[in-house]
């Protein structure tokens, strides 16, 4: 009754190929867009808007990693390094050449895509855990390079201060302006990824993930498509790094170390491998949950701990709770939050019937 699929007649190829053919899908997407682009920046306080912005940047990164890990099946622990490549490229261009953001963001993405392609070459020979170690090596090598090559890192401190992006002469400084700036790129990323996975390239990725020998036999050039997967995923990572740089005003490689790579891997796994909504849900989960657990502990922690121990207990309990919740969600639904949502949606698809 809610999720009406009958009575939707398509009379042209465009309607047939539409991203959201069902009316409920169109309405909900329009509602979310209206919410996050119009209502939220006007009503939400600066603090909550800043949390939302951190989540938005993480969404772009998670989408990129999901293309590689979820759709193509190549495990990568190098995502943080590609972000730092994008960040430093953009920072150097912005500071030394005065390039505007609509040059530095694609440039950062392309540089990261180039490095990602090079890093992806081992994937043509090794799979699974072995590839994970190779990408881990890439993460550490790129970290070391940025640390030691001063014309990339901008000096001993290895951080470059970047002025905020300016659009038509207006510098985007307030939280609302930055939010709209980030929202633009998130919309492009989400729409781009949704279309990518429906296209020929996306189908090739899925074929490689499912059974790459069979894919090769039916004529998919897995050499080319694996490298394309690494390139596209690293492009997303590079753009994420540039967005972080513009949001914080500084490019610093210590923000993109291996813990960040593992965070993004966690986002993709918890959210759901191989789905756009999974990347978004995973990014929200991993970024928001530590903050939520801290809020809950600050308000209700006095029930469990004495006042003196509370300050010490909050950060430690937060770590324990975060890990515990990850385990809980993965036990409840091993395929991630996306599958949890799909179960709910399928229930409502046939409601009030049960099948």
């Amino acid at each position, binding site marked *: 009754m809610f999720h009406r699929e009958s009575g939707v007649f398509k009379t042209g190829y465009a309607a047939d190929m539409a991203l959201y053919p069902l009316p409920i899908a169109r309405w909900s997407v329009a509602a979310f867009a209206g919410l996050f682009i119009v209502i939220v920046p006007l009503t939400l306080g600066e*603090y909550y808007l800043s949390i939302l912005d951190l989540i938005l940047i993480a969404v772009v990164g998670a989408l990129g990693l999901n293309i590689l890990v979820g759709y193509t099946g190549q495990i990568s622990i190098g995502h943080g390094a590609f972000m730092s490549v994008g960040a430093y490229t953009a920072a150097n261009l912005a500071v030394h050449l005065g390039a505007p953001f609509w040059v530095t963001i694609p440039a950062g993405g392309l540089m990261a895509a180039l490095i990602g392609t090079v890093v992806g070459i081992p994937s043509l020979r090794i799979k699974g855990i072995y590839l994970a170690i190779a990408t881990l090596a890439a993460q550490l090598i790129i970290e070391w390079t940025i640390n030691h090559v001063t014309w990339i890192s901008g000096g001993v401190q290895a951080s470059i201060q970047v002025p905020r992006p300016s659009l038509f002469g207006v510098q985007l400084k307030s939280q609302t302006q930055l939010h709209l700036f980030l929202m633009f790129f998130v919309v492009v990323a989400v729409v781009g990824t949704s279309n990518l996975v429906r296209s020929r390239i996306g189908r090739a990725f899925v074929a490689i993930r499912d059974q790459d020998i069979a894919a090769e036999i039916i004529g998919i050039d897995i050499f080319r498509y694996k490298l394309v997967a690494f390139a596209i995923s690293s492009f997303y990572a590079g753009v994420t790094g540039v967005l972080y740089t513009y949001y914080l005003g500084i490019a610093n490689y210590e923000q993109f170390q291996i813990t960040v790579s593992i965070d993004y891997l966690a986002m993709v796994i918890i959210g759901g491998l191989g789905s756009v909504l999974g990347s978004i849900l995973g990014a929200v989960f991993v970024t928001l949950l530590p903050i939520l657990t801290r809020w809950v502990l600050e308000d209700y922690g006095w029930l469990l701990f004495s006042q003196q121990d509370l300050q010490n207990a909050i950060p430690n309990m937060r770590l324990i709770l975060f890990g515990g919740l990850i385990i809980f969600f993965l036990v409840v639904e091993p395929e991630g939050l996306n599958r949890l949502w799909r179960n709910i949606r399928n229930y409502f698809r046939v409601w009030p019937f049960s099948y």
Partner: protein
Amino acid sequence: MKSLPRMMTAVAACVAAGLCFVGGAAAQQKEILIGGMCDRTGPTQVNGAGICPGIQDYFDLVNSKGGIEGYKIKYEEIDHEYKVPPAVEAYQREKGDGATSILVYGTPQVQALNQKLEEDKIPGTSPGFGIAASADGKRFPYLFPVAATYWSQGAAAVKFVKDRLGGDLHGKKIAYLFYDNPAGREPIPVIEDLQKAEGFELRTFAVPPPAVEMGAQVLDIAQRYKPDFVIAHLFGAGPSAAIKELKRNGYPLSKAVGLVWASGEHDIIGAGGWAVAEGYHTMSFAGVGDDYPVRQEIRAMYKAQGKEPPKAIDDTVMYNRGILWAALHVEATRNALKANGGKPPTGEEVKKGFEQIKDFSLGGLVPPLEVTATDHQGGGWVQVFQVKGGKFVKETDWFRGYPEVVAEAVKKAE
């Protein structure tokens, strides 16, 4: 399918419980909010475990004595596990709650928040770490190192070595063992400038992160290079590993000096105990040891409440640094209140308060700092203690090494 509605209500209950928080609204009644980030978890938890209770206890002590000119201090501490996005979120929260000054913990966090602190006009402090160039108050108006930066620490180490080697470094060999990240490399330009000026031989030995394995570097130092002194700049688990390795290779620890983050009690204990580390020189930007009046006052405060002081008070190095950090914020806020006649201070007024700090020694725990509008470092004072007979013994009084060289480096930094 039958369990689905039950599962949904369970999930909804969790979400509702999580959303059912009461937003913290600071009481308007004579309260000053000071925001802090302190890591009790994460890679620097060994330091945070001592520093964070020190900060908390000093603020409690000031509150128990009536606060700052009648204003109670509300201290908001948020742990960010040494990651940058949680630090940004913590800063936004503290700013939203009305913090007048922030204790910024962690060098990448200082880098990330520098622009925001300047835009929002809230002063942030980073004693003993952070950006060394932030000693320049003109270029970094809202960042206050308020304690020896890495440049000052490096210069002070060279001065200490010079004094120990008879006042002349010509022809002597110094080894610099460091953690291979920007913070570890930061003293190198200053030490190289001093090398040209003083005429000693310098070799640097980088230890890649996480700096728990340095057998090769220490072997190189002890057996091949055989320097007259070793300056060690390591963090986390590095210092204890360095002490162990130096001892194992037969290098006398009385010819080694560690910079401020290689100088904690946990480093000595982690190396195998006080007997193992006998002779090791440690540098500190806050007084070390128990006989400072403020520590006795904190113990008395706990006794009056009928409670035991936290275990962290036994860490005389890190806990004292926490006290110093908090005390400087209290002093700056007090200066701001005196200047504006008792009205609730703004971030800008507290910034000016920081720039008026001088003649404030807290019984010898705090060095003779003099923070001015151009010198946010306060001079770069350190003290050196030596591990002798099971505790830290004061070896030098407060001193600064080559302040002109450090000032030159600050001016040259881009």
